[in-house]
């Protein structure tokens, strides 16, 4: 394994360890079976994730090109299955239950979207042998891929999981941009999206509207929807420079902070590790994304290149949005922090994605 791949592996292990420690800290004092299991399960997921990471790094990523439509179809089926068989938790139907495993197809959908778009924008037509997105017309460059993406996106938002849905949209915009689409199409698309906002507002669920309103003014409902943001900010802020120490964060330990082991793991971490820890964590994440982008830049294969960049973008958006939402500078949407948050689906998909990245780096010289 070459240098860059090793860096990615080290970053993966470092960040995951931080995550595991925080999950342990936020759950160890909570009584009852499920709480005790959470840390062990996460450990198990992490082990699985590592296996998948190594597996994927050894499977040629070009195979994904062949499997793209199969994977896409599978994802759509899984997303549809969620509506039929899905487990309802926290008021949303997001999980599929296989034996004892709760799987979240929306996590898979993020990666599949990246693979799909990477393939779509890098396919060569019979007429042009070169990469040609910039020469495509409005229909083929924008509308067709967007229709493909809006199917899983719509299904995810309908679950309802606004966060993951929006992530798909972001991924689309970034990959569209990176694929070299005409700037005016991008502007056109952004304009349409902006214009559609008021219409979409009415399609949102009430709790989603509340969250956005609360984001604009957290004190409008301090005990309801604003509670989480306020408590999260208190948790992060009270960490100070060095933090309260491991297992000593009052906000997370005494359960003032809801979802302290999943979406708000960053607050838990920042409370106990302080400014120093938070900055180190941010730096690690930045390096990880930077590595992904660097791999993309070095790859000459269009598919590999777009895939690497897409994966980096996917991770980057999730990290940025999650941390921003922890600090109250983005609305609260159900988004995990990759590698930190508790959740099998998230950690497995992230490990797979990083495995693909490593494989792209490894396979680069082949072409």
């Amino acid at each position: 394994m070459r240098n860059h791949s090793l860096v990615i592996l080290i970053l993966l292990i470092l960040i995951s360890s931080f995550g595991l420690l925080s999950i342990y800290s936020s759950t160890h004092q909570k009584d009852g079976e499920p709480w005790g299991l959470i840390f062990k399960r996460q450990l198990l997921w992490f082990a699985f994730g590592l296996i998948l990471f190594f597996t994927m790094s050894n499977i040629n990523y070009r195979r994904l090109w062949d499997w793209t439509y199969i994977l896409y179809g599978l994802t759509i089926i899984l997303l549809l299955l969620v509506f039929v068989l899905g487990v309802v938790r926290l008021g949303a139907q997001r999980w599929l239950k296989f034996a004892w495993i709760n799987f979240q197809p929306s996590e898979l959908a993020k990666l599949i979207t990246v693979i799909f778009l990477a393939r779509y924008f890098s396919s060569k037509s019979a007429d042009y042998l070169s990469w040609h997105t910039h020469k495509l017309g409005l229909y083929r460059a924008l509308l067709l891929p967007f229709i493909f993406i809006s199917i899983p996106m719509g299904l995810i938002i309908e679950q309802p999981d606004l966060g993951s849905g929006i992530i798909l949209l972001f991924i689309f915009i970034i990959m569209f941009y990176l694929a070299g689409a005409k700037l005016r199409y991008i502007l056109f698309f952004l304009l349409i999206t902006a214009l559609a906002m008021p219409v979409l507002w009415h399609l949102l669920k009430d709790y989603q509207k509340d969250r956005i309103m609360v984001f604009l003014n957290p004190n409008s409902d301090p005990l309801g929807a604003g509670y989480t943001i306020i408590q999260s900010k208190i948790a992060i802020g009270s960490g100070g420079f060095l933090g309260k120490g491991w297992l000593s964060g009052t906000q997370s330990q005494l359960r003032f902070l809801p979802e302290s082991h999943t979406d708000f793991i960053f607050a838990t971490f920042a409370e106990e590790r302080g400014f120093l820890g938070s900055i180190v964590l941010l730096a690690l994440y930045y390096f990880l994304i930077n590595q992904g982008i660097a791999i993309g830049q070095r790859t000459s294969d269009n598919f590999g290149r777009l895939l690497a960049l897409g994966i980096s973008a996917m991770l980057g958006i999730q990290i940025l949005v999650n941390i921003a939402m922890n600090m109250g500078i983005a609305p609260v949407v159900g988004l995990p922090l990759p590698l930190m948050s508790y959740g099998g689906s998230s950690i497995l998909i992230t490990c797979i994605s990083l495995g693909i990245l490593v494989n792209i780096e490894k396979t680069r010289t082949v072409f």
Partner: protein
Amino acid sequence: MRIKVINWIIFFLFLFLSLAVLNLQLINGRRYWQLSNKNCIRLLPQEGCRGNILDRQGKVIVGNKLSYDLAIIPQDKVQIEKALLAASRVLGRDVDELGRNFKNGFIAPFAPVVIARDIEVRQAIALEELRPDIANITIQMRPVRDYPYGKFGCHIFGYLNEIDRRRLTKLSDYGYQTKDIVGFGGLEEKYDYYLRPEKGGLSLEVDHRGKFVRILGFKPPHDGKDIQLTVDLDIQKIVENNLVDRQGSVIIMDPSSGEIIAMASAPNFNPKLFVKKTSPATLRNLFNDPRAPLVNRAISGVYPPGSVFKLVMAYGALDTKKMSTNKTFFCPGSMYVGRREFKCWDIHQRQNLFGAIIHSCDVFFYHTGLIIGAQAIHDYALRFGFGKVTAIDLPYESSGFVPSPLWKKIRRLSNWFDGDTANLSIGQGDLMVTPIQTVRMVAVFANKGSLVKPYLVKSIDGRDISVYQRVPSGTKFKEATIEYIADAMRSTVSEPTGTANILAIFGVQVAGKTGTVQVPHGQTHAWFIGFFPFKNPKFAICVFLEHGGSGQAACMLTRRIIEEMLKQGLIR
């Protein structure tokens, strides 16, 4: 190219997040840290007892007793509702009101919330009996101020109430907080710092539901310090009983040390009203009563001294050597000063200073005043402690006022006339004194020439502080002169024609001087100041009755007090 753009965007977004973290954790860290403590730390205060106030024999005059509070342990809603209903039934109070108290007093789900204070023992027992059915009712006991002698001494002690804004601003540096119970007026205010209990309490960690997690710290409450007074409860009782339905004040002081043995002011008030959380209307009536029952007339009331001031005049006349004891004046019942006629209350014919004191002859003292001059009178009044506070250990003492020619020129923009001197000579006009000042003045004649500082508190927490209380007096008065006037005071009582002859009682030799003050409206004020036993004075007394009639009325009251003291064997 486009990759670079994305790279930069990501870099800036991460930078932005870092700055946001910096803002939250470093710039606003302190605030959020406090907020997080507020989230999880609860304080359960525990009260100590306020210090007792003891009389000179060590009897508790103001103490503490247990009061019963009804508290509810917050559990589930149904239980609370049930408890509130039961409580309202037993106490006969509105459920909504109790519910409001519950809501306001809530600290944490495990901490009992007091919903009714000071319930009666009978009610407490009745509620306690409900416990098998309603488990979350508890009766808590709490020390409250107790006044076993009711209104007695209320002006000495003052009362207790929740701290007001003015005192809070003044005292917040000394650890006083809102809702603290502090003394208002009297010793409770003056010695509040010693009397107040030191608050203790538990600091607890709670979780998001307010459930108890662990104890972070405990500070035991400390009781306030006891203070012992110079007041003799038996004599105080006699004095208070004799002042019932009167308006005025009586002070009895040890003339040699300045220890206040009894001090009463009428009308008085019941300090219990403030402990009991009486209806606001009752308290408002108390505050707005035109007879001002809350004012301690003994130290805060200012009145013209009338004829009792003649003692100062007599000393001044002899001390300046402008008059001898042989000098006589003829009193035809009035005299002209300038063009105005100044009356005497009787026709005294010719007499010297001794006789003038015995008969309280106004004309004689008009002459005396004109001879020694207004400035000298002013100076002697100041030497006897008038015009400034006596520095007794009570708050809100008035200083009274002694006029002088200079003052009149500056403040009234007019000249001082001989008529003013004549008025001043018999203690009328602008001259204003407090009863405590007059008792101190008369003590000079009892202790043969020193001006003492009156005080009330003998020891704090068992430690004798009389050394600090007895401030050495300034210049001594001339003993011979003092004795001469004291003899005249004795004759005032013993001579059949003396103004205080009714005090010639069997058993104790009293010396004194009466005073009758002309007032613009209503009856005259009545004064009597004196001391007894004459040979070895143990008590200096001042009796003042507001609109009480002539000095005779004050003498009558004095007689009753002394007789009662004799009867109880309090004069040895």
